[in-house]
Structure formats: structure tokens, C-alpha cells
């Protein structure tokens, strides 16, 4: 008998420890970034452009650039992704073609981000002659996060009980109206979750924007979507690898990362609050 309890305890301790390790590593990571980065943070750091070969000054253009790129990516990918998911889960006849599309979406999710970068360079920057700019970068990031949003939206749509659809269609409401009034509103929390993941990924990626949007340095703020911008992840990459003052700019690198992490977590937080608000309103 005692042996059985012992085994049980060992098991409990193990799973508890696993969960604990995850929480601990995230915590440690955040604390580390915070401790190293907080020294660089200040009003000037957040509001001024870099100067003296980027060894001093702020990162304002990069913050703004990342904001534009991320917002652009989500504006492009969210409608496209949701509409694709509606087609896949509500309209398409399940069969080999749909299976193929779904496999395609999953493959796309696994493609390394640098490949998206090259694809964006080839298509948007060179072929369509947008040049390296916000539009090209946002489109590239949009394609990058599309699979995430399609996947999450499809799951969310599937999660809406079939009985809701039947109830609406049975009243003589058209399929499109049923999707618009019943299915989509009830799938919204799940779709938002997908967008959170997408935003986080879009804000943090370096490779896709390296060739399509990001400038090494520009003090000028963008005035149109055809302007090049600085971006936080690329800025860190540049400071940490390509500059001539790598050691000297360490604090700026950490500060930039701290801003990036705070930005992503902040966006996540907004979406989580929105989601829980919607969930509270809709219960079934």
C-alpha cells in the first residue's frame, strides 16, 4: 500500500516540477531582461532618435516602425485569415482539395521566417516595385502570421455548437446571415487568441523585415507606407552584430529588448482583457 502512495507522490512532484520549470524560466527571462534593460530606459530613450552612430540617443523611430509594421500585418492578415477560415470550416465541401489546402496552411506555418523574408523581397520589393518599405514589410509579416490566424480562427469556428447553426438556419435565416450574426460573434474570443499569437510573432520577427522594410538607421520618421522604417528586433540585431561599438551599446540593446517585450506583452494584455470581456457577455 505504502509503495503505491509513494509512486503517486513521485508522479505528482514530477508534474508539478515540470509546470514550475516553465513558470520559472519565463520569470527568470523577464527579470533578466528587466534588470539589464531598465537602466537604459528613460524619457529620452523612448522619444528621441539614435545619435552618434547609434551609441547614444533613443529608439523612438524603431518603436514607431515596429508599431506600423505590426499593425499593418494584422490589418492585412486578420480579415484574410478569418475569411479563409470561414471558407474552410463553413462553406467548403470536405474532401481532398480542402485537405490539400489545410496541409498547405500547416506547411506555411512551419516555413522558416527568413524564407518569408526572401519571398517578400522577391515579390513585393522587386517584382511589384514597392521597394523596401512599410507596405512590403507589413505584407510579408502578414503572410507569416496568416497560418496562425487561419488555424486559430478555424478552431474557434468549429467550437461554435452546430445546434446554433441549425437553430438559425431552421428559422429560415440565410447561411451568410447565420455566419455573420451567430457563428462569428461566438467564435470571436478564439479568433482574438489567434490574433494575439500573430501580433506577438509579427512584432518580434527580424528576418522577414530585414530585406523588405527595415532600415539600418534613419532619423526621419515615415510619412507614407512607402517609406523605410527602423524596427525594434532589427535594431537589436544591428547593434549586437553589425556595429563597431557592440560592447558599448549593450545597455541600449537590452533597453530595446525590454521595450519590445513590454510592447508585445502589452498587446497581449489588451487582447486578453478584450477576450475575457466578450466571454463574460456570452455564456453557453
Amino acid at each position: 500500500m505504502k509503495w503505491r502512495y509513494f509512486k503517486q507522490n513521485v508522479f505528482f512532484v514530477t508534474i508539478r516540477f515540470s509546470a514550475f520549470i516553465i513558470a520559472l524560466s519565463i520569470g527568470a527571462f523577464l527579470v533578466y531582461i528587466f534588470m539589464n534593460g531598465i537602466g537604459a530606459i528613460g524619457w529620452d530613450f523612448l522619444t528621441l532618435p539614435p545619435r552618434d552612430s547609434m551609441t547614444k540617443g533613443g529608439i523612438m523611430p524603431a518603436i514607431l516602425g515596429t508599431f506600423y509594421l505590426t499593425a499593418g500585418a494584422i490589418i492585412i492578415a486578420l480579415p484574410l485569415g478569418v475569411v479563409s477560415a470561414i471558407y474552410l470550416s463553413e462553406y467548403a465541401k470536405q474532401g481532398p482539395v480542402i485537405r490539400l489546402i489545410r496541409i498547405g496552411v500547416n506547411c506555411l506555418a512551419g516555413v522558416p521566417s527568413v524564407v518569408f523574408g526572401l519571398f517578400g523581397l522577391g515579390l513585393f520589393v522587386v517584382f511589384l516595385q514597392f521597394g523596401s518599405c512599410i507596405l512590403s514589410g507589413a505584407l510579408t509579416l502578414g503572410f507569416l502570421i496568416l497560418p496562425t490566424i487561419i488555424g486559430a480562427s478555424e478552431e474557434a469556428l468549429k467550437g461554435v455548437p452546430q445546434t446554433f447553426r441549425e437553430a438559425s438556419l431552421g428559422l429560415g435565416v440565410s447561411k451568410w446571415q447565420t455566419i455573420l450574426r451567430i457563428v462569428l460573434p461566438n467564435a470571436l474570443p478564439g479568433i482574438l487568441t489567434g490574433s494575439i499569437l500573430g501580433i506577438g510573432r509579427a512584432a518580434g520577427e527580424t528576418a522577414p523585415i530585414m530585406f523588405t522594410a527595415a532600415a539600418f538607421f534613419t532619423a526621419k520618421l515615415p510619412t507614407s507606407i512607402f517609406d523605410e522604417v527602423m524596427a525594434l528586433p532589427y535594431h537589436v540585431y544591428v547593434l549586437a552584430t553589425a556595429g563597431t561599438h557592440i560592447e558599448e551599446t549593450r545597455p541600449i540593446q537590452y533597453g530595446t529588448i525590454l521595450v519590445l517585450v513590454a510592447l508585445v506583452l502589452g498587446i497581449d494584455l489588451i487582447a486578453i482583457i478584450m477576450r475575457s470581456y466578450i466571454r463574460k457577455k456570452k455564456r453557453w
Partner: protein
Amino acid sequence: MLSDNIIEVKRVNFYYGEFKALTDVTMDFEKNKVTALIGPSGCGKSTLLRLLNRMNDLIDGTRVEGEVVFEDRNIYDPDVDPVEIRRRIGMVFQKPNPFPKSIINNISYGPKLVGVKDKSELEALVEQSLKQASLWDEVKDILNQSAMMLSGGQQQRVCIARALAMKPDVLLMDEPTSALDPISTAKIEELIEELKKEYTIIIVTHNMQQAARISDYTGFFYLGKLIEYNPTEKLFTTPDVKQTEEYITGRFG
């Protein structure tokens, strides 16, 4: 004799993929009567019910042969809009399935989408529908609360009111009381008695006593075939077919 039939099913075969769920079913449904469809599980009675307002269209790989005539036209003709048919032939499902909305929005959902915009007209329609579903007195003070908060029996009556608000001619009910307790069941049965003055009701039920209590006509299905279709009293007292007798006396099924 002048035909008083509202729906006529003519030589219908129905397939789910390769599986033939209904074989050569012909039956007429009389206006302002309650017709019950009974039979063991998988006999095709629910399939037939869902065929009458084209709800089976929603399932991939189904096929219909034969005709279902409603108001002089075959509802399976290619130029017939199933959405239009479902407005005229409403449906109440086995499990109560109100929308996760307030009671008032559950009822006004359908009418709003077919163009009833006027607020007072909508309110009147909600009140009338809830009264018809004998739910008004219980919910008139909580119309803005979620329909999900109600009991199962009340939820089912919300669903009935929701269907009535579309002003259909026919109401299809697919085992509407199988998920409910006896008291809620009795209320719904009373309601059906009341509703047949204005509507034609076709109800699928597992419960033979229920069919005997509330229906004017009963059809007995077995293995996808209509075995016997007669006035309820006759079917339950002196059935024409031996299989029917065996089923209603509980010898199989």
C-alpha cells in the same frame, strides 16, 4: 373530397451517401392537425422530418428522390430557395438550443433579419410569440436576461416562440420533449394542443404514449419504410399491420 393536405410526400427515397435511409415513402400531412411519426431508433422518422424543410441539405453527401409538395410545388425543385421554405416550415429541435442572447433577442432575431425593423412591431411580435408558447407570464419581467439562464423546459418554449415569431405555416418538432422532465413535457404537450388551431404540427417522438395523447394521425416507420399511416386512435387500437401492433405493444423496438 377536397384535399386539405398542406404537405404531400410522394415516393421519396433518401440516401446518406450509399446508405438508403428512406424507401418509397408516400404520405400526406393534413392542415391544422398534429401528425406523429413513431418508430424505433434509426427508422428514418427524423430523416423524413428534416426532409420536409430541407434541413438535410446541410449534411454533405445526401440525396433525395421523389417529391415533397408544399403549396403546389416540389420543394426540391432547383428553383426553390430552401431559406424561403424554412421560413414557412419552422423547426424545433430535440435539445433546446436557444442562442446565447437575451430572451427578447432570441425571439426577435429571425423577424429582424427578414425585415421587421419597427421597434414597437418587434416588441408586439415578441410578446405575441411568447404568449403563444405560454411562456410570457414566466419571463415578461426578465426579457433582457440571457435565455441560457432558463430551465430546460423554458428554453424549449423559447425555441418554440422563436420559431412562431417567423409566422410559419407548419411546425416540425424533432422529439421536443426527450430532454425534458415530465412536468415540462406536459406543458409542451398542452401547448401543442393549443397551437394546432393555427399551425400544422408534425412531431417525431420516441414516446408512444405521447403520440397517442397529442396526435390526430400517426405514421409508424421501420427500417426506412412507412409501415402504417392511420388516424392515431385506429393505429393504437386496431392497427392494420402486424408489425405496428408488435411495436406498440412493446414486443420489439
